[in-house]
């Protein structure tokens, strides 16, 4: 069996991207909720190597930005003093992966805040918000995927393995769920929930909503695989030797579904990240001031922001590498699964 095929680079790239988001506290220079009320909608700051007088500096530096006199939206660089960019600085406290307390940040500066990709309406650092927002969005996608697949495997396996009226009933329920317009269902679902929810509650509610709505499709796929697997010769043989249902499922049938599950996982994560973003974009997600990619984009609903502050689009760009990674992984896994199956069946000498 050749496993050198294409899924590994995709997986490594994704691991790296998730690592960055997971260590958002380290890569982000500031706390994502810290406001700088003197600098709302600050455009991305420029990093210089050559100062106003034409001298070259080895250490990158930047100039602090100030509102132009009498204006509330135009910023200008104050070229009097170059503020050097420092690496591995102590700053706002955070917890790495939510556990390890730390103060260390990849970069920062002493005299002024550095906003590499600008700031939002409250002067909050956009880079920090994108990184921290990714934690919410990706975690929602991953946990939603886990919940969905758990439900999908459970229901799909029961329906496929036991068949009969159980299969009929479960598959009708699946069809019902597939046929429902799920965005509206999400709305309805969220509307029933209490008004005031803390960010943590809201987060788990989103995952619950995603899981409740998303399980139907994987369940149907897995049922199909189980249905075909349970009629395979080696399964029948095992049954003939007196294997119990539990043993058959565990040992012979569910392993057959692994490639479908993995591919589904890779497809579902970006789909659920998008679901979380949709909910947050529409104001039904994690509440302010906690960022998520969807809520970072909500300000773009206003025409004035849309035409004035291009850096507010950046959270939308942030999702692109993740989506590419997941979709690449999914298609690589699918290819693998296809060839793997043929080799396996050929190896067993059925042909």
């Amino acid at each position, binding site marked *: 069996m050749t496993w050198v095929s294409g899924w590994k680079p995709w997986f490594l790239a994704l691991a790296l991207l998730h690592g960055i988001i997971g260590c958002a506290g380290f890569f982000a220079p500031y706390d994502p909720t810290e406001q700088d009320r003197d600098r709302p909608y600050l455009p991305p700051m420029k990093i210089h190597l050559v100062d106003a007088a034409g001298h070259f500096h080895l250490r990158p530096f930047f100039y602090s930005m100030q509102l132009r006199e009498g204006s509330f939206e135009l910023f200008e660089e104050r070229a009097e003093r170059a503020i050097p960019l420092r690496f591995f600085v102590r700053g706002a406290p955070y917890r790495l992966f939510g556990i390890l307390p730390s103060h260390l940040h990849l970069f920062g500066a002493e005299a002024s805040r550095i906003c590499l990709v600008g700031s939002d309406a*409250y002067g909050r650092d956009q880079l920090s918000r994108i990184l921290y927002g990714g934690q919410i969005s990706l975690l929602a996608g991953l946990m939603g995927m886990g919940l969905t697949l758990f439900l999908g495997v459970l229901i799909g396996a029961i329906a496929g393995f036991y068949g009969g009226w159980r299969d009929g009933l479960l598959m009708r329920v699946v069809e019902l769920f597939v046929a429902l317009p799920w965005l509206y269902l999400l709305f309805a679902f969220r509307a029933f929930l209490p008004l*005031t929810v803390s960010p943590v509650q809201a987060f788990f509610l989103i995952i619950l909503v995603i899981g409740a709505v998303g399980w139907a499709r994987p369940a149907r796929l897995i049922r199909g695989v189980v249905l075909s697997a349970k009629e395979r010769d080696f399964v029948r043989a095992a049954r003939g030797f007196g294997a119990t249902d539990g043993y058959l499922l565990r040992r012979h049938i569910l392993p057959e579904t692994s490639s479908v599950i993995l591919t589904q996982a890779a497809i579902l994560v970006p789909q659920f990240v998008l679901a979380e973003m949709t909910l947050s974009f529409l104001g039904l997600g994690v*509440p302010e001031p906690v960022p998520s990619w969807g809520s970072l984009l909500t300000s773009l609903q206003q025409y004035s922001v849309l035409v004035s502050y291009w850096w507010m689009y950046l959270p939308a760009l942030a999702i692109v590498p993740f989506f590419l990674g997941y979709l690449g992984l999914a298609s690589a896994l699918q290819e693998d699964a296809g060839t793997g199956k043929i080799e396996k069946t050929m190896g067993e000498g059925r042909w």
Partner: protein
Amino acid sequence: MVSMARLSTFGRWLSCGLLLASTGITSLCANGFPPQAGSSEELLTLPGEIGKQGGRLVVSLRAEPKTLNPLTAADAPSREVILGAMQADLIHINRATQLTESALAKSWKVSADGLQYTLTLRKGLRFSDGHPVDADDVLFTFRVYLDENVHATQRDQLIVGGKPITLRRVDAQTVVFQLAKTYGAGERLFDGLAILPRHLLEKPYTEGRLSQAWTLATPPSEWAGLGPFRLKEYVAGQKLTLERNPYYWKQDAKGDRLPYLNELVFLFVPNADAQVLRFQSGETDLISRLGAESFSVLSRQQNGYTMSDAGPGLEYNFLFFNLGELGEKAPPDLARKMKWFREVKFRRAISAAIDRDAIVRLVYQGRGAALWGPVAPGNRRWGNSAIPHPARSLEKARALLKEAGFSWTAEPSGEPALVDSDGKPVEFSILTSSTNADRTKMATLIQDDLRQLGMRVQIVPMEFRSLIDRVTQTREYEACVLGLVSFDADPTPEMNVWLSSGGTHLWNPSQSRPATAWEAEIDRQMEQQLAAPSFEQRKKSFDRVQEILAENEPMIFLASPDILAGAKNSIGNFHPAVLEPYVLWNAEQLYFRNATGNASK
């Protein structure tokens, strides 16, 4: 007296802009013979720039008006169209000076006891269909307004001292209004009360179907008014076209009959951003009710139009806590929190911790004013200058909280958390209207301000109607950020907000008896200002109300936005006012400087 103060229902971003476009080729008037100002007519002469006749002005309206019937018009777009352009009142409040001036009534006299108002109509007045106006129309109008079976929206306003106003005809030009009780701003009552044509409406009235009359589908021949424009065409879902009223009763300094414009078109554009785009593309000629951010976008690329900032308006935004008496049905959690809210030091601490300057800067981009009382700087006469404007002080806030028995615990996360005397953490939620980006932004700033005091605040954006329902009906909320806009600079229309029995007494509406001594004092002062005969006495009472509000902070006043508007450069006499309707209040004087108008349509 029911308040006309209106919850500013929609976000500023969803609000209405008025826009105009014009073609120079519109016909003059359908009847063909524009009457000349004869000696029998007493036209009102308006000062101001002399304009040119002609043109078609296009403005956008935030929603389709629901009706053209002044009796049933409760929605803002209907009121804007009816009162702004189609109808006229006996005595009018000048939107620029904020003072009353004669309108259909050439003059009025108040009796010594302040109970009798004698109004004399202008001579030669005609409705827009040419039918003459006399005292009978006035009597008919008020009979209809006061008829309980008609359910006119104006009825409550005309009940003074518990009794309806009574009218007596003296002669064809003179009517006497009798009030049961002195009413501070008596002549201001007449503003916005359209005089209706008896010859058209008496039949539906006797048949009992008056409230169904004058829908948008009414043919123009069955409609008549006294405003500068009259009905021409209504296209459902798209626009309402008005044409010049050839019998209008105002003239310019040169003696030419107003209005100048041939047509006034209201486009229905429900989205504020779409209104900005239409104005930018020249499709509409005027825009108002702009948010500060849209205003800067438009100001940045001024292209054939000029933007103008009329200064702070009458809108005041505030944070308030639920101070109601919920009794036993209150959820225990809410009842526990309401104990904090009733503590005046708690409210003062919150007020001291709020950074109002940041609100003006970040929410209104500096185009607004910080507030410490309900009278916005746009109101020229009623503000109490003695109200202190303390700067933001977290130290003062902390000291007040300590005095009130609150303390801080060290949290493992590092930030100290505020706890009450029972050791429960101070956490509450603030409702905001989800359609109003400005107020949600204010709440977000307040959230951060209060985090520095160790309070955990959550923001709950809600659909506006369910929010109002929660605040005034179910009362299951903790705090809320809202704004109010008064139609008038006078405090009387806001009685409903300040009286403890008022339905818009937001922190504890519709009380049967004042819950606190200071609310009782406000009630007393408001009644006094209503009955006081002179402005000085009324002002004194209202000053006292403002002081009580500043001391007790049932509402923590935040900021007031500027009135922002824009118009094409070719439009003359464009003077946005801080009172509604911000730009169309002088619709009869607006004109196009270039002869052809803006033929953008």
